[in-house]
């Protein structure tokens, strides 16, 4: 008797659970994972009949989803535009979207899946340096191709990765130089406790030493931590009369940092903060009241005045809503699809080696201005410094006259000083000693 009841109960609860999951599934938005347009068997190089398959590998869930979904949108917009204009080599691009779930081993798994099972022609993906490092081995062992759209700490130059975000000498170094020239010499460094801020701060400290600045203190906050009182006290003690704060915090900590800075009376006129991970989207989430007057360094701001940018911002808003903003990583993600398309068209095939050769030297009139793919797989980019203004966008207060050539290996850090990277010459490759430096 009790057995029968147990089974019935099991059936009851089982059907309830199953039904609830159905209900939730039917009510939520359709899952983004999976192919966008039909299924193909997949041929070598991602070509199959009338379509070319490309992989998109970002976090659609987890902590990083907030940032990475915007990049996916930019990539999809570029693919849609290219398809509407006739595609690549006369074929439509078909995006296979995979979710890295903010989990680095998952990134590696999904990268292998895209390469082996879907046989994509190229993968666009990753945001955090940790996820890039996780998939780097996969792309190198399978000799495949990844395009990476986010500014990062440098000190890497893989044959199998194209970096379309800024290298440190295209974002951090010019920002430090500009602060030294315009704002003073005393720097306090604040960052989240992981690879990018620590590497970036090493670079900044070396640069300050070389250029006559002072590092008066540095502190690291665990990712996601929101208690910044000790850091604020340290800043007040180290810089009682004001000074520069260089901020490499990431994620939620930024909100806490700026909210509590204002409460403690650290205002931008005395304590200007230069951030390298706060763009238009983050300004909206932190609240512009806390950020007005602070600075950020990027290659692209929504307020850049080029005809290409005007067109892009319009297209983006038309696709995703009037209230949306565009930012640097999204722009880098958008242009890398076009750069890859140009490289494929020049090569006349999606064969990886041919595309890799053809990619070097590709030029594109991007929203941020002219960009060129250099032999070290990074882009020449214009560097800009913006100040947050009343509407939450940036006033561009300074920019380089022309694109800055990227340096994969940092020239301020002793271990890599004098090294460069050149994939157009097989004898040089990832890291070689430059003569007479």
């Amino acid at each position, binding site marked *: 008797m009790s057995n029968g009841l147990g089974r019935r109960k099991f059936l009851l609860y089982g059907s309830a659970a199953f039904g609830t999951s159905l209900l939730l599934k039917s*009510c939520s938005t359709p899952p983004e994972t999976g192919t966008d347009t039909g299924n193909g068997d997949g041929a070598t190089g991602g070509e199959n009949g009338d379509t070319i398959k490309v992989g998109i590998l970002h976090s659609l869930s987890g902590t990083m989803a907030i940032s990475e979904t915007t990049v996916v949108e930019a990539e999809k917009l570029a693919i849609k535009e290219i398809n509407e204009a006739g595609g690549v080599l006369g074929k439509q691009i078909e995006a296979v979207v995979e979710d890295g779930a903010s989990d680095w081993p998952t990134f590696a798994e999904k990268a292998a899946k895209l390469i082996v099972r879907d046989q994509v022609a190229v993968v666009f993906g990753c945001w955090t340096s940790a996820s890039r490092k996780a998939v780097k081995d996969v792309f190198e062992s399978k000799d495949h191709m990844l395009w990476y759209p986010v500014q990062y700490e440098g000190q890497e130059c893989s044959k199998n990765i194209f970096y379309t975000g800024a290298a440190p000498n295209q974002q951090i170094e010019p920002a430090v130089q500009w602060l030294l020239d315009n704002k003073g010499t005393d720097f306090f460094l604040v960052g989240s406790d992981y690879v990018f801020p620590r590497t970036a701060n090493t670079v900044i400290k070396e640069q300050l030493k070389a250029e006559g600045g002072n590092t008066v203190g540095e502190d690291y906050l665990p990712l996601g931590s929101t208690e910044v009182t000790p850091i604020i006290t340290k800043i007040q003690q180290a810089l009682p009369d004001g000074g520069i704060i260089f901020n490499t915090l990431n994620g939620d900590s930024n909100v806490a940092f700026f909210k509590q800075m204002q409460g403690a009376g650290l205002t931008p006129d005395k304590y200007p903060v230069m951030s390298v991970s706060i763009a238009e989207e983050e300004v909206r989430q932190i609240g512009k009241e806390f950020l007005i007057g602070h600075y950020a360094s990027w290659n692209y701001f929504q307020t850049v005045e080029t005809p290409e940018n005007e067109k892009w911002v319009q297209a983006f808003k038309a696709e995703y809503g009037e209230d949306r903003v565009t930012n640097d990583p999204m722009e880098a993600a958008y242009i890398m699809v076009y750069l890859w398309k140009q490289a494929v068209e020049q090569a006349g095939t999606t064969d990886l080696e041919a595309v890799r050769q053809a990619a070097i030297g590709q030029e594109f009139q991007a929203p941020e201005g002219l960009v060129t793919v250099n032999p070290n797989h990074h882009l020449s980019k214009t560097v800009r410094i913006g100040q947050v203004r009343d509407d939450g966008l940036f006033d561009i207060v300074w920019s380089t006259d022309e694109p800055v050539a990227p340096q994969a290996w940092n020239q301020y850090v002793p271990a890599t000083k004098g090294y460069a990277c050149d994939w157009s010459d097989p004898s040089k490759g990832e890291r070689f000693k430059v003569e007479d430096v």
Partner: protein
Amino acid sequence: MLELAVGIFNGFSIGSVLLLAALGLAIVFGLMGVINLAHGELMMLGAYATFVVQNIFQGFGDGALNLYIFVALPVAFIVSAIAGLILERGVIRFLYGRPLETLLATWGISLILRQFVRSVNGVLVLGIVLFCLLFFGGLWFLSKRTDWERIRTAAISALLPLSLAISAVAGVLVSKTGVEVLTKPWFSARNVDVTPPAWLRGGFSVGIYQLPYSRIFIIVLTVLCLLGIYWFLNRSIWGLRIRAVTQNREMSACLGIPTDTVDALTFAIGSGLAGIAGCAITLLGSVGPNTGQNYIVDVFMVVVVGGVGNLFGTVIAALAIGIVTYLIGSGTLALMFSNSDALQPLTDFFTFFAATSMAKVMVFALIIAFLQVKPSGIFPQKGRTAEL
């Protein structure tokens, strides 16, 4: 002297945030023995309630916007208390006395709540409301019948799939119409922007320092909550019942105390306090689906160090952890020893830990050491008299 005063203030302000967040858990975990891993998510719901209230007040102009926090506090309390009530009635009451199952179940609930705020939209709410109406309405209707006891199982197994199917189909149909108001997520996975009212954004100047008004506000709020809870537990009739049930459930039931109602009430109040904490942390930090995760570990730490079932212990633990975190993290300890050469190694030692992430390591190490000496916290429960 000034440094010391500011230091104490800062330590207190860190401690008061911890305490406010831990207060609800001290009640739920301490009095009821429920390991509620969804406590952080109840805080998050409070924070989102604050966000909604703020947006409503934006429509009333600047004058009203300055006062939204006073409406947001009770709203956050009510929202989280209701969520807690549903949680207790729907899940936790079946799991009393089984801490491991409670732990897993509440962790699952925390995942569900996080995903819920990410993907909640008109269609989802419509589906859930329709399902509840059909299912519980149907049950209520059928329970009027005289042969209810006999047909109960059959009725549930018929109603459940039926109402699920109807609401699922309705959901699919509505989402097919593509009305954006219904299909657009309310909050999405992004963090939302909660801006404290203008009068809470400044600070009170003391020499070169400035004491943030938001911190003072939180300290005052914490004291008020503490007094309120103390009064409720020790002076009100329901407080008496709660204490009675905590001490001896069977005996209280024999004496006619409705233990079920007491459980629900206790849990709802604990959850409501989490909501108030959620409202308070919008003054300091970010509001997003993961907000609660940033606090849950610290909050459990406070309750465990304080001693389970003891509000006073929780207060001491929160303040102690806050002050120690501040003294180590801000390098004040390192400064104190730097005057004398003999203590040079000590200075070096504390300088090494004078970074926020290292301070956390040190605090955890101290707590582990402390729990070796006093495994049940500052004020351990003695015998059967688990008193407040």
